[in-house]
């Protein structure tokens, strides 16, 4: 069948791996949340420091997600492996979700300090632009009917985006120094005392595993849907 190559091996592998991945993610979340709420309040920020335990991991996965998407796009372009395109396509909505969570928790975290929900601070602004990059990628993919062409066009966009990310990051930081002084995030950031390191680290691990768990589930769904399309096409050809 000329149609979509059938990645049997991936389906078997991911089928066996998923239950373990899901269980580990759940355990990490349980441990992480427990530690987040039993950690002492920060001497300066008080209990708002607990928001850091869900803001920083979301921000990390948002950036890691885009990097993963760009890597999968590169592999998809270079050796035309359809599985890489599926991975990149399904990583985008997840990345966008975590970017949105990073923005929301970031704004809630800054609110007590700034007095407003939005502060044009370097880090938050960069995540806002990252969200636009994700949305542009998803929109481009859905706008092109031909699947193979959509995969390649989106791959090029992801690579252009990942090359531009550091430039955008730098220009936004440069721009914040232009308009107002330091902000809480960048004045060396809140020095993270040791007792906060554990909850932060475990929550980051939980978020990362969650990303890959959901990614595998969504990739399997995409593969099943592509097989359905191929069957339907073959049936009435």
């Amino acid at each position, binding site marked *: 069948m000329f149609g979509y190559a059938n990645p049997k091996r991936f389906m078997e592998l991911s089928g066996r791996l998923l239950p373990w991945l899901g269980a580990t993610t759940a355990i990490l979340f349980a441990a992480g949340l427990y530690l987040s709420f039993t950690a002492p309040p920060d001497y300066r920020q008080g209990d708002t420091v607990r928001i850091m335990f869900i803001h920083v991991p979301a921000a990390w996965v948002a950036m890691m997600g885009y990097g993963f998407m760009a890597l999968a796009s590169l592999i998809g372009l270079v050796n035309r492996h359809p599985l890489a395109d599926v991975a990149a396509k399904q990583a985008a909505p997840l990345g966008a979700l975590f970017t949105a969570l990073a923005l929301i928790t970031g704004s809630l975290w800054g609110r007590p300090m700034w007095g407003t929900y939005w502060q044009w601070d370097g880090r938050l602004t960069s995540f806002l632009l990252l969200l*636009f990059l994700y949305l542009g990628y998803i929109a481009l993919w859905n*706008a092109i009917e031909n699947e193979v062409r959509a995969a390649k*066009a989106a791959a090029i966009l992801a690579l252009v985006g990942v090359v531009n990310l550091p430039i*955008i990051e730098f*220009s936004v930081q*440069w721009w914040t120094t232009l308009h107002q002084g330091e902000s809480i995030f960048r004045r060396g950031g809140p020095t993270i005392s040791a007792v906060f390191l554990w909850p932060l680290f475990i929550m980051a691990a939980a978020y990362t595993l969650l990303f890959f768990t959901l990614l595998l589930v969504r990739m399997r769904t995409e593969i099943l849907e592509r097989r359905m399309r191929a069957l339907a096409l073959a049936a009435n050809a």
Partner: protein
Amino acid sequence: MRALGALLVRDVRLAARAGGSAVLALAFFAAVVTLVPFGIGSDAKLLARVAGGVLWVAAVLANLLALDRLFQADYEDGSLDLLALSPLSFEGITVAKMTAHWLTTGLPLTILSPVLALLLNLPATAYTALIVSLLIGTPAVSAIGSVAAALTLSIRRGGLLFPLLVLPLLTPVVIFGAGAVLARLDGVENGAIWLLAAFSVAAVLLAPFVGAAALRLNLSE
């Protein structure tokens, strides 16, 4: 090279003709700038402060107007196939299109900008900074815009998707461009113009190759 020149001359002629995109972009630029005082009031001091930023944002938006159909018109009427089969490489096609767009949109906007700066009461000292920053920055807009145009050429209503793809990538241009004008206003030297030039050079040098890759993929699927 002659082939590249031929395409460049043809596209400039097409854009300059009535109904061409050049006049449209200028009118849009003037309209947006004229609208701003109605929005934020005619207080001269406030306008002077935001003039650089408003002119830069309006210039970028006006540029986008003509960009999304840069390749699409040729794709739809069969010309792109003829260009692909000509001695011109895809890189050459992108260079010609990018340059034609800058000559018919980026450059005229830069020339018109001081006139509109009057409307916004831009202080006299900042005029050179405005023109120089636009002169250096608009090629980057044409370059990045042409890559996005090549990516979206097979989409019938790509026009709606186009700004979403391009604007995040253009933030550095707006930041450094408007930043250069503001720096001049405040009499401070923060290297904005050099950062803008660096970004522009990189964009202009890389865009033909990325644009060509996008054209190849859209033609060969």
